[in-house]
């Protein structure tokens, strides 16, 4: 599994950080997504949850 984020789409909702805090953070200034890491085994569900709840469809999961 590979995560791709689209910073231009991001609206800074922070839902990804709430779903997968090890994988995502938010920029201090504008709140846009920062991808911290690609998912390790066992983190796939959290990553999918983050993609699903993203209100801006800014996170893509590539299997």
């Amino acid at each position, binding site marked *: 599994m590979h995560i791709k984020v689209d910073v231009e789409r991001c*609206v800074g909702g922070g839902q990804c950080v709430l779903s997968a805090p090890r994988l995502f953070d938010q920029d201090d200034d504008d709140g846009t997504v920062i991808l911290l890491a690609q998912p390790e085994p066992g983190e796939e569900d959290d990553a999918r949850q983050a993609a*699903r709840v993203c209100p801006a469809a800014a996170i893509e999961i590539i299997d």
Partner: protein
Amino acid sequence: MTMPGAKGRVIVIGASAAGLTVAQELRRHGYTGEVQLIGDEEHLPYDRPPLSKQLLTGAWEADRLYLTSRDRLADLDVEVRLSKHAVALDIGSTGVGPVVRLDDGTELTSDSVVIATGCSPRQLPGTKPAITGLHTLRTLTDAQRLRDELGTGRRIVVIGGGFLGMEVAAVARTSGTQVTIISPGQPMVGAVGPAVGAALAELHTENGVRMLIGCPVEEITADTDRVTGVRLADGYRISCDTVVVAIGASPNTDWLTGSGLRIDDGVLCDATLLAAPGVYAAGDVARWRDPRSGQLIRVEHRMHAAESAAVVAANIMGQDLVYVPVPFWWSDQYSAKIQFYGWPSVAAHLWQGDLADRKAVVLYSNENGCLTGVLGWNSIKATRSARELLIAGACLGDVGRTKPLDAG
């Protein structure tokens, strides 16, 4: 309920964010039956929030809005039928699943039906919707038409002071259009309360929007078939080229009349989003009793579309998830990025920053002094901290110093 792995068929009516998410989630759960996605627009599922933002400004073209492609749907083995209206639902009887009838006469039998038909914009009573220059904004096609009417030298009247109207006004003004907002009361009050509503109205006024509050619209005036202006109940006339009616949206449930489902400002469901055996609702059209507040609620935000859809898909697969969302929405108006988690309430309190500085976090509390919602204005990370307080069930006594904004 369909047993995991069993062959069957799920029909999803509505091919927008909620409908698409149901289909994707069913496959993720390992559903191997047929999944059909029925949409009444000509477009593949697309994202609606940018319609009043990046699409309307021209920053994005339509291709950036699509949430999927035909190839991806084929990979998921989801059959999509576009430009098809569902016209009737038979919720079935013992041993027979729900049956959907489409406008082309097709009858689709199923094990489960998901109603994700969304909402349609409310129209002003007594107006001819066919007048050139009279707009509502819900679909991609609506947004593309409206975009062509904006620009320097053009005059637009926005009827409605909710966040769609305010976003349209901000985009129009930024593009040089002369903008008037007509709102029955203070803009945005229902969503953010009087204090933040007033600060947002001030932001618009500063940007050169004319704000007319408290006088109902009597008539949209037209010259043969083109909008010429708006006449208010007190006789005042505003000349314009374009009118946008943004006075809210109604759930698309007409096709369910006679289905036996309970319809009351949406499809009434239980808290698992089940409306009848094998019949679920997701997204804007669903109405259910929120276990936390005890209120019947319906939510029209983007994140709810996906979250409710995920619950529906899990429940079709035999889970029994109760849906208890913390709603989230955001709005972009000029330089203001507004974010909201939870629900507004009678009392608002300034927690961080200052509305005058256009950087603030506002907490909303109920009659017990406990948080119901949090709003951030250009305060992304602090708003997330406030959300954590909200989720933890904090009350005003737990959050440190606050300053009252709207009295409870």
